[in-house]
């Protein structure tokens, strides 16, 4: 499938958007997750709260995904 380089760059941009979001969320959740496991070892009831707090940075991925979808929408419109 040969496309115009502009469309290709848009695709690249979309990929970067989601990649950046995912890496950011990964780094954030890594720290929180480690702390959550530590808390859980001491007190089993912390599992619910710990899991909840660990998932809070998911917003970063969502925003990345939304931007990627919008960019792909632009690509589809331009093609």
């Amino acid at each position, binding site marked *: 499938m040969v496309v115009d380089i502009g469309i290709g760059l848009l695709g690249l941009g979309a990929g970067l958007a989601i990649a950046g979001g995912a890496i950011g969320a990964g780094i954030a959740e890594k720290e929180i997750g480690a702390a959550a496991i530590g808390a859980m070892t001491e007190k089993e009831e912390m599992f*619910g709260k710990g899991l*909840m707090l660990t*998932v*809070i940075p*998911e*917003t970063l991925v969502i*925003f990345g995904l939304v931007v990627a*979808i919008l960019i792909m*929408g632009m690509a589809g419109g331009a093609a």
Partner: protein
Amino acid sequence: MIRPQKMTKVRIISPQSYVRNVIEALYDLQILHIVDFKKGEGFDIGQPMKEAAVYSQQLIDIRSAISRLGITGEPVYLRNIKDAQKKFAPINKAFKSTVIKLDSLKAEENRLMEEATNPLANLGITCDRILAYKTLVSFIGTVKVPIEQKISSVTQDYILMQNKLKKHIAFALFVPRTLQEKAKEILNEAGFSEGALPGLKKEDAEAKLTEVRKEIDALQRNLDSLKRHGQFLIDCEFALTQLNEKAEAPLRFGSSRSTFIATGWIPADKAEQLKQNLNKAARKKLHVELLPADDPPTVLHNPKVVDNFEFLLNLYSLPRHYEIDPTILMFITFPLFFGFMLGDVGYGFITLILMLLLERKFASAKPLLRIITIASLASIAFGFVFGEAFGYEFVKHPILNRVHDINTMMLVSVAIGIVHVNLGFVLGFINELKHHGVLQSFFRKGSWVSLQIGIALLGFGYFRHSPMLQLAGGAAVLISVLMIIKGEGMLRIVELPSLVSNILSYTRLYAIGLASVSLASIFNKMASGLFAQGGFFIIFGVLILLVGHTVNLLLGILGPFLHSVRLHYVEFFQKFYEGGGYLYKPFGLLKNKG
């Protein structure tokens, strides 16, 4: 059910002679959340009843027996506690003596095993008569390299017995005391490690070891046979815990020589029942007064199916007694969000079956499983709306197509976000009404709603090219911002952008759904490609379908669950919820079963 149950604080005063009766009556009523008495003003805490010490000791014994024997099970009502205590005494004696003997035998076994595997065992020397000489000095142990040559180069006056092992040489060396230092030097160079001679010959040690092991087995069988009392022990433990609670209750009351005072919380509508029962127990020599007080425990009371969702509130934080209880709202919105995200007939159906099966096995997790069951019903409904089953679009023109109607889906998600967030503001408004009155509440919460209306008018006016609307919108925005500053202070301005980010956060409803659909359709495409090749590849195709959809299902339960809950806890609760209530633990919760 929109607010937690109303509670009253009561103070019960009665003579000490009736303290037992009152405690029994309270335990049976199961409604008083005791507020432990704090020392001061002439009153001290009470003395536990005499039998408390006995109960405590027996509880310790029973619990150690239960844990050592590894007994599990549900307790059943024990009719006669005195007989039970008598029956327990010989069991306890047998248990303790067996355990003591067993432990000492196990220690002996370890010692014998060390002896039997002592590397110095085969040197041909026994016992300890060789260790204390005036003119001779002995070295016993292991070295890493042979030492015979070095020793013989120093003196011919020595006795060396050696035994070559895998990595060392076990040895016993006897030299005149005058050569002690030289010998030490040589030995240290060779990596000398001191050892002790075994006390027994190897054969003797092994014989004794088998004997000891036989005894250990016999004792272990004894111990295991005690397991047949398992159910009895559990019933005893339960009954004794109840008795112990009652016997130690006076520690939580205020006491003088002749009176005791018990303070606590009861549901407001149970006050009459409390007075009647206690008056009967204390033959009217009792005084109950209702105190005005402000920090009751939180008791949520919701109708039958809705109360499962209290689990989500317990996970986060219980509402204060004056707040709105959002459980019933979560009953509506949580399954909606979950269904919107999972939105697949096939996955929803399997989740439903799975949860119903799990409920049989893990009865204790019933609230959580029920929540997901209800949510899976919503998923099936949304699956028909989106026309998806296991990622396959089985409806030609569904109401909403997740993969292609991107813009519509995003708009729907954002719209849901706007509705939910504003619902939060409305609830916040209602909560504030109780404390601050209409005007303040409007400044604090209503202003956010009017802010959004203003922005909407602005946008509308811009797209319709109507200066009238734009002016109205701009004015509304300005007035709202001023109201926010007036109601909550200047710093609240920094939260204006967070309004946008909170609403946009709801786009995850679409994003997660899209991810799930995409993953499923990828597996479907891979499998159909393999099916087309026919023959052997069909097996691969089926395998890919099974593994892929299982993974997607697990993600599809975990993901939507966590994100729905997160949307509630963060975006929704932030607008109105305070939390920080404490749990209601009435005296007597360990009620007899059966």
